[in-house]
């Protein structure tokens, strides 16, 4: 017990001194301004990519290869978690919440889906994009798991379908990249590779950026929901009692 308290005090002292050290080392520019690559991106996004959202342009055009790598990390994680919990089959899931909650959820689902798709599809003209929209898509399946029980969720959106969606997202991303290579403009090239851009601010602008947004949205949505499902299916006890009287 004494040793544990001692350990805690040492930890607290270490963290406090580290925090003080970082605070002292902080250099805040008195008059911050754009410099380096950021200034170039802000000045040239319109002519280089045709997208209005500069963050999306950096993510899917200037640094598209980086994003491709990040998307691979999600894929690897999903493979790892699904592999760790592969053997257990879900015999019976939880019984879900009360009918009032189920009805309310049923009314909300279409709106959440519309919201998520608008975030993904308009990712190049408004703040948003594939990562955020995919996370909202995954929220729908997580809510299904919590409110209706994970067996219902698995019967409506089977894990196989999610797998296909995720893989096709990755393939779409790679195909857009390889198209640039085939056109002789380099991997994940955008306007140089012949993707046309409409007027800035319209839905069909930004060349390949909307396509890549959709690909990442499919990957993230399906990936996060697979992660949640793989983990919840082993946490729910099959030997649980009968459904509660509602």
């Amino acid at each position, binding site marked *: 017990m004494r040793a544990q308290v001692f*350990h*805690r005090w040492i*930890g*607290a002292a*270490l*963290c*406090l001194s*580290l*925090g003080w050290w*970082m*605070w002292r080392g*902080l250099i*805040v520019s008195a008059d*911050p*301004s*754009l410099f380096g*690559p*950021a200034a170039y*991106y*802000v000045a040239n*996004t*319109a002519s280089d990519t045709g*997208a*209005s*959202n*500069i*963050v999306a342009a*950096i*993510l899917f055009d200037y*640094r598209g290869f*980086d*994003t491709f790598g*990040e998307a691979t*990390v*999600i894929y690897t*994680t*999903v493979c*790892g*978690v699904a592999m*760790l*919990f592969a053997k257990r089959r879900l015999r019976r899931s939880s019984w879900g919440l009360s009918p009032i909650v189920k009805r309310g959820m049923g009314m909300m689902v279409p709106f959440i889906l519309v919201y998520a798709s608008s975030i993904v599809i308009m990712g190049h003209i*408004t*703040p948003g*994009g594939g*990562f*955020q929209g995919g*996370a909202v898509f995954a929220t729908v399946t997580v809510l299904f798991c919590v409110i209706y029980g994970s067996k219902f969720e698995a019967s409506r959106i089977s894990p196989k379908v999610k797998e296909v969606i995720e893989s096709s997202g990755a393939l779409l991303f790679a195909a857009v990249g390889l198209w640039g290579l085939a056109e002789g403009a380099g991997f994940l090239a955008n306007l140089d590779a012949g993707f046309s851009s409409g007027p*800035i*601010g319209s839905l069909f602008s930004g060349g390949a950026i909307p396509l890549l947004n959709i690909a990442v949205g499919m990957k*993230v949505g399906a*990936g*996060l929901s697979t*992660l949640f499902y*793989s*983990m919840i299916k*082993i*946490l729910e006890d099959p030997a649980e009692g009968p459904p509660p009287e509602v």
Partner: protein
Amino acid sequence: MIHVSYGCAIAIFCIGLYTLITKRNLFKTVIGLSIMEGGVLLFMVASGFIPEAGPPLLPMVGGSVNPLPHTFPLTAIVIGASDVALALAYIIKIHRHYGTVDVDKIRGLRG
């Protein structure tokens, strides 16, 4: 005022680090890791701030904040979620195997 954001980020990072090094429960360790990640992301987003500048969207009114530090957290959040998920998966496996999530009690090879 930007000092408040930086101070918050450093405080959150240190709280996460304290959780990471003093707790024996593996679940709490992972929570500490995720708190530390939140501090780092907050620091990155705050570092792009420019006073009296708008968001980096194209009909731009009076300059924009630095878009580059907004890009990295976007992917880092998803990466953080995935590595927390993988860590939790391993902890669940460890709990099934050893019957405990206390790092001090997980000893030796079993099974």
